[in-house]
């Protein structure tokens, strides 16, 4: 055979392997609003940047007549490429080949690209679209899942790991995305659950649709398993590109800076916040009034909306922002919002992203349901995450910061490097009403007009304690600043923190209240 013939033979083999499950299966996939696996990769990555590996890998299963079945690329496409010039490792399960089912070689292709990504120090993107374990391969497909989970864990905090759910992802398969940093879902396409509607019906007699059990909306609004929701695959890919632009390649690098941009003029910081600490506003307007180009990339928008988290840039540098949201449940901390913030704080700390905390909260949410759901254990996560973080930590207290909530929101006491407060800040053990009712209980009860006395005492307490000056007098706050100077103070604080280093006692790892 001449080289030319050998090349022709190669091309034929490539073409055959790349047809996946064949024209009919691909047609079915497309009809569901889903792109074929390779097209997903080439759409997401920079043009012509994708290089595929392991195209000719074949499964080794001989049971149940599997030896007679050829599964092109064993149902998963793997390779490397780039997103806006950032190198990435990527895999995409091919639902058209045996339902994207995971057998041992399929898993080995995935673990190989995971190992590569970890060694090269580049982000890993996994596109999940699979019916689950390849039952014919038995325990070997379980081995495959386990080997993936193990690597997800070893790579955690070393390289960014992004999971994209573009089809079913059920049973054990859900745990790989759950171990990764960010999960993207698409309306009506993504489905994630441990046990499906069939099993639930058989065992519990309860009927539920796949969509209501584990659809994209469920995971963005109820469970918090997903971080980003999109209406279509294309919108989802744009979100991934944007995320990648905010984060570093690995934990030894910083995110690439962009040229600095001023916030847009339609966000005037002085007009956003009502002075009355009991009136709501949207904390995202404050964030947009501070950050570059008013561009705030929010994460987990629709879950635990009483806390807002996301990436933005200050003077071109990526920062992670955590802010209480007075528009939702008065911005309280509770089980879900503590979980949400704590994980994000740890992400930022792992990837050298400075943390900006915007504080305006009345405390923790009272309630039997909260106590029984373990708000002690969950609330502790946020304390742990902030205390553990060694990236620059800068806190701005906008309005109320009461009680345990004040401590938890990256106070000086949890190691904040800089704490600024607006003149509207109220840093106190609790709100004036509650404090007056306790401190002046006897006087109020004994007064001729208890209501009038209560009002008077609340006012007294407000005047004396509902301000930032007592905290400032104790050095718990570094500066009381004009709100319009917030951006400038933050940029300065980040600039002087560029070489921050904090040495902690050696330990294998801490024991956070998981």
């Amino acid at each position, binding site marked *: 055979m001449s080289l030319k013939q050998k090349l022709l033979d190669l091309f034929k083999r490539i073409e055959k392997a790349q047809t996946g499950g064949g024209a009919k299966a691909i047609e079915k996939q497309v009809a569901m609003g889903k792109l074929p696996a390779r097209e997903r990769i080439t759409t997401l990555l920079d043009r012509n940047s994708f290089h595929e590996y392991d195209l000719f890998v074949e499964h080794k299963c001989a049971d149940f007549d599997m030896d007679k079945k050829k599964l092109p690329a064993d149902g998963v496409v793997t390779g490397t490429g780039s997103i806006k010039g950032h190198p990435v490792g990527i895999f995409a399960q091919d639902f058209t080949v045996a339902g994207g089912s995971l057998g041992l070689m399929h898993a080995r292709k995935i673990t190989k690209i995971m190992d590569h990504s970890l060694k090269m120090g580049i982000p890993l993107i996994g596109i999940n679209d699979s019916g689950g374990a390849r039952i014919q391969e038995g325990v070997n497909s379980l081995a495959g899942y386990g080997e993936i989970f193990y690597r997800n864990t070893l790579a955690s905090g070393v390289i960014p790991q992004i999971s994209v759910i573009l089809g079913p992802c059920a049973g054990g398969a859900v745990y790989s995305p759950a171990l990764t940093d960010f999960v993207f879902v698409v309306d009506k396409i993504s489905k994630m659950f441990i046990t499906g509607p069939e099993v639930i019906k058989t065992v519990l007699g309860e009927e539920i649709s796949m969509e209501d059990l584990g659809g994209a909306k469920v995971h963005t609004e109820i469970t918090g398993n997903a971080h980003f929701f999109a209406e279509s695959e294309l919108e989802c890919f744009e979100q991934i590109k944007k995320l990648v632009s905010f984060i570093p390649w690995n934990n030894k690098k910083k995110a690439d800076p962009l040229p600095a941009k001023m916030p847009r003029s339609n966000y005037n910081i002085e007009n956003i916040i009502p002075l009355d600490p009991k009136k709501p506003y949207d904390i995202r307007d404050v964030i947009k009034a501070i950050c570059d180009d008013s561009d705030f990339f929010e994460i987990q928008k629709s879950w635990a*909306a009483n806390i807002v988290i996301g990436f933005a840039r200050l003077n071109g540098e990526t920062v992670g922002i955590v802010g209480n949201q007075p528009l939702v449940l008065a911005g309280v901390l509770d089980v879900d919002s503590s979980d949400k913030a704590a994980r994000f704080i740890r992400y930022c700390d792992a990837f050298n992203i400075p943390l900006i905390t915007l504080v305006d909260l*009345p405390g923790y949410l009272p309630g039997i349901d909260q106590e029984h759901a373990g708000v002690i254990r969950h609330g502790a996560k946020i304390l742990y995450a902030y205390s553990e973080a060694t990236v620059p930590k800068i806190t701005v207290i906008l309005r109320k910061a009461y009680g345990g909530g004040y401590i938890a929101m990256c106070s000086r006491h949890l190691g904040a490097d800089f704490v600024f407060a607006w003149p509207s800040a109220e840093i106190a053990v609790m709100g004036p009403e*509650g404090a007056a009712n306790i401190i002046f209980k006897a006087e109020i009860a004994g007064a001729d007009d208890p209501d009038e006395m209560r009002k008077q005492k609340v006012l007294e307490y407000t005047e004396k304690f509902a301000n930032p000056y007592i905290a400032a007098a104790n050095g718990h706050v570094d500066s009381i600043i004009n709100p319009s100077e917030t951006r400038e103070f933050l940029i300065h604080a980040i600039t002087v923190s560029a070489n921050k280093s904090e040495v902690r006692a050696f330990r294998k790892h801490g024991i956070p209240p998981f």
Partner: protein
Amino acid sequence: MNNYNIKTLVIDDSVYETGLTKKYLNRKTYKPVDQKRVNAFIPGLIQKVFVKVGDKVKAGEKLLILEAMKMQNIVNAPVSGIIRVVPQEGILVKKNELLVDIG
């Protein structure tokens, strides 16, 4: 998600104007557990009943076997008392259905 109806939330005697989440609005109100009423913790089949109405039982005594997910679950009396209600053997019960009432 921007369209929150502004309601009120009371924390430490202060009344805050704010939006309320679906989860908050749908939170379960707490009901103390009535130990005398034994409910099905899982749907299943009443495979065997060891007691009858009028029997005196001691806490920890076997009441019945509830078969679910191919497992025979032995249900014991949480408290001592006199049996008021028992299920029939062989019937299917739903989750949280009353099985035994110990008066």
